[in-house]
C-alpha cells in the first residue's frame, strides 16, 4: 500500500463486503487506487476526488459516458461529479460481475438520462446516440438518420406512447437483451 495512506479498518471492510457485490480483494484494490488518486494531505473517507482525476483512470478514459457515470454516482452537494470512496465503491459494485440485472438497469437508466428528469425523452436519446457514434464528423449520423433512429427506438420501447421511455419500460427492454449484463461491466 502507498506509504502515506492508511489502511481500511476491518469492520468497514466487512460492511462494504456485505453491502456491495465486490469481493474483499476488489475492495482493497479499489481502496489502493482511490488513495493514489487522492491528494496526500487530505484525510480518508470523507474526502472526495475531483471528476477530472477520476476520469484519468484507464477504465473510464475511453468510455463515452464517463462524465455521466461520475455525475450519477456522486453524492456531492456541489453536483460537481466528485466521488468519495464510498461512491467509488458503489460505482464498482454496480458495474461488477455479480451485480443483479435490476441494479445495472437502474444505474444504466440514470446514466442515459442526460437531463436528470427521470425519463428518456428524444433529446436524451439524441445525446446518447451521439455519444455512441463517436465525436468525429464522419462517424456521426445525419439528421435524417437520427430522426429515423429515435422514432424507431420510441416505437419499440415506449409502451404507453407518451414520447419518453421511463424506468420500467427501460427495464422491460433491457431484461430481454442477451448481452446487456456482460457488456455493462467495469473491472479494475
Amino acid at each position: 500500500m502507498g506509504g502515506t495512506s492508511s489502511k481500511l479498518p476491518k469492520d468497514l471492510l466487512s460492511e462494504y463486503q456485505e453491502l456491495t457485490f465486490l469481493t474483499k480483494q476488489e475492495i482493497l484494490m479499489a481502496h489502493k487506487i482511490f488513495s493514489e488518486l487522492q491528494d496526500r494531505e487530505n484525510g480518508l473517507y470523507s474526502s472526495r476526488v475531483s471528476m477530472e482525476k477520476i476520469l484519468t483512470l484507464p477504465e473510464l478514459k475511453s468510455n463515452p459516458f464517463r462524465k455521466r457515470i461520475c455525475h450519477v454516482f456522486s453524492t456531492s452537494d456541489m453536483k460537481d461529479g466528485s466521488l468519495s470512496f464510498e461512491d467509488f465503491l458503489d460505482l464498482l459494485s454496480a458495474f461488477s460481475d455479480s451485480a443483479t440485472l435490476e441494479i445495472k438497469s437502474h444505474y444504466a437508466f440514470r446514466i442515459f438520462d442526460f437531463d436528470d428528469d427521470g425519463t428518456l425523452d428524444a433529446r436524451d436519446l439524441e445525446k446518447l446516440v451521439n455519444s455512441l457514434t463517436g465525436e468525429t464528423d464522419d462517424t456521426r449520423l445525419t439528421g435524417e438518420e437520427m430522426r429515423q433512429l429515435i422514432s424507431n427506438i420510441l416505437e419499440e420501447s415506449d409502451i404507453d406512447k407518451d414520447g419518453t421511455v421511463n424506468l420500467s419500460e427501460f427495464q422491460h427492454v433491457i431484461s430481454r437483451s442477451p448481452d446487456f449484463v456482460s457488456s455493462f461491466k467495469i473491472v479494475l
Partner: protein
Amino acid sequence: MNSAFTTWKWRKTLREVRRSRQQLQRREQLRWTLKEQRRNMRNATKQQGKRVRNMKKESESKSESDSAPESKDNQAVGVLGSLTPEELEKLKEAVDERKKLIATMRGKPWPMKKKLVVLSCVLSQGVTGVFIISFLYYSNCQKWMKFQRDFENFKTACIPWEMKIKEIESHFGSSVASYFIFLRWMYGINMILFGLTFGLVMVPEALMGKPYGSIPRKTVPREEEASAMNFAILWDFGGYAKYSVLFYGYYNSQRAIGWLKFRLPLSYFLVGVGTVAYSYMVVIRTMARNANEEGGGDDTSFNFSWKTFTSWDYLIGNPETADNKFASITTSFKEAIVEEQESRKDDNIHLTRFLRVLANFLVLCCLAGSGYLIYFVVRRSQKFALLGLENYGWWERNEVNMVMSLLGMFCPMLFDVISTLENYHPRVALQWQLGRIFALFLGNLYTFIIALMDAIQLKRAEEEIVKKNMTIWQANLYNGTVPDNSTAPPITVHPADIPRGPCWETMVGQEFVRLIISDTMTTYITLLIGDFLRAVLVRFLNNCWCWDLEYGFPSYSEFDVSGNVLGLIFNQGMIWMGAFYAPCLPALNLLRLHVSMYLQCWAVMCCNVPQERVFKASGSNNFYMAMLLVILFLSTLPAIYTIVSIPPSFDCGPFSGKTRMFDVIQETLESDFPAWFGKMFSYASNPGLVLPFLLLLVLAIYYLQSTSKTYKRVNMELKKKLQTVSWEVQMYVQMSPTVND
C-alpha cells in the same frame, strides 16, 4: 383470457400478502431469538467472546492476506464448539435471516451512506457470536460464487478464434463475421467426425489389424511397385497412399481383430451411419436454437433499443479499440436504418419486374450452359478412360475436376453481375445469389456422381472378368506341382503377385479426395490472386496509373460472403458423401478448415474493404442451416444407394465376401447377441409396427406445429392488450385534472 389474467393477479396479491405476513412473523421470531441469544451469550460465553476479541485485535495488526479469514474461521469454530446444539440452531436461523436482509440491501440502488445507516438500524441488536458465524457462512458462499464466475470466464476463454472474429466483426460488420462463425461451427462438427473415423476405424485397423504386406489387399501390386513412391503418384493418391488406412480397400473383412476382439466391419458400418446421424442431429438442433433465439417475432422488435442501450462495451480501456467500437456501432446503426428504409421503399414496379424476369432468364441460360459443359467433359473423360489414361497429358486426366472448379469460380461472379439488374434489398439479393450458386453446384455435383456411377459399373464389369481369371490363375499355380485334386499344401505366393480385382470403393474414395484437393487448391489460388495480388497491384500501381485505381475499376475486393459460404457447404457435402469410402476425408477436411480459417482471416483484414451497403446477416443464419440440411440429405442419398444396392468388391474392404454391406448387421445380431434379441429385433422391424410408428410421428409433428402457432397468436394478443391498457391509463391520467376541478 380475462379470467385467467385476473385470477393470476389475484393469486399473486394473495401470495404477496402471505409473504409479508411471514416476514413479520419471522422478524418477531428473530427479535425473540436474539433476546434469548443475548442472555445465553452473556451467561455462557462472555469470557470466550473477550478472548476472541483480543485475538481479532492481534490479527488486525498483521498484514492483510488470504490466511486471515481462515484463522478467523478457526477462532469461530472454537467459539462454536462451546455452544450447545440448540443454541447453535437458533444462531443459524438468526444468521440466515440476517443474510436475507443483507442480500436485499445489496440489491438496492442506494448510495453507500444510506445503506450503512439502514444496516446499523436493523442490526442494532447484533451479537458477536452471530457476527462470527455469518463470517464463516459468508466466506464459503463467496468462494463458491467466485469459483462459478471463474469457470464461466474459463469456458468463454476456451472458445477458439473469438478475438479474431470479434476484430473482423468490428471492421466489416456482422455478415462477414457470420461466415467465420459458420466456419468455426463446421470445424467443430468435423472435429467430432474426425474423432469417430480416426478413433474407431483407422486406429484399430492400423494397430490391431494385419500389417502392410501380409495380404493382397494391403500390398502394392508387383506392377506398380516401381512407381509407388513417386511424388506424382502419391499426390494423386495412388501407390502407397492407396494401400493404406486412408482408403476403404485396405481394411480386412475379419470379423474380430486383435486381443480386444474389436469388430471392425461392424464398427466401420456403424461409424458411417453414425456420422450421418450425428450431422443431422447437430444441424437440426442448431436450426431449432436459431429459431428460438429469433423469437416469435417479438424479441427482434427491440432491435434499435438494444443497439442504443446495450451496444457499448464498458470493458474497453484502449482508445484505439474505442474508436473501432464507435465505427462498428455507427455501421450497425446505419445497417439497421437501411433495413428499415428498404422495407418501406416502393419504386417503379413494372420496370423492376421486367428486369428481374430478364435476370432470371439469363441465370437459367448460364445454368443450362454449365450443365451441358460438364456433361460433355464427363463423356470425353469416359472416352479417354476406355482408350487408356496413360496416353493423355495432365489436363485430360484432370479435366472433369478442373472444369468443375473453374465453373464454380466464374459462374458466381457472372451471377453477381446479373443480379445488379434486379435491385433487391441486399439480404434478399444475397439469398437469390445463394440459391443460384446452390443450383449450379448441385448440378455439378450430380453430374459428377453420374460419372462416378458409370465408372463403378465399368469397374464391376472388370471385377467379373478378374474373378474368372482368378480361377484360371490358381489352376495354373497348382499345375506345375501336384496333379491330382487331393488337398495339396498351399503354395506360398507373395501377396504382391496375386491378381486382385479393381476395388471400386477405393476408386470412389480416391475420386472424392482428388476433388476436394483440387477444390481447396482452386479456392486458395483464387484467394491469393483475386484478393491479394489485386490489392498489391492497386496499392503499388496507383501512383503511376492514369485513373484512380482505388476508387475506380479494380479497387480492393469485397469479401464474398455468399460464395464462400456455399463453397463451405458443398465442401462439407462432399465430405459426407465420400467419408464412407475414404475414412481419411474428415481428417483432410479438418486440416483444410484450420488452414482456411487463418488464411481467410488474414486475407480479409489485409486485402478486403467493407461492403458499401452493409446489412445484418441475422436472418441468414437459418438460411445457411437449411441449405446445409438439404445438402446433407442430398449427399447421403448416393452413399446410401451404393451401400444398399451395389454388392461390395470380393477382395477388398471390410465387407468383402458379403452380398450386401448391411449384412454385417445381420451377422452381428446372429452371432454376438443372444437369440431373443434377434427375435425382438425382427419383430420390431416388421412393417406392421414401423408404419404406425411413422404415422404417430407425423401426427406429433402436426400437433406441435399447431400449438406453436397458437402460442404465437396468444403472444401477439397479449402485447396488443398491454398497449391498450397503458393507453387507457394515459387517457385516464389526462382526464383526471378535469375531474378534480
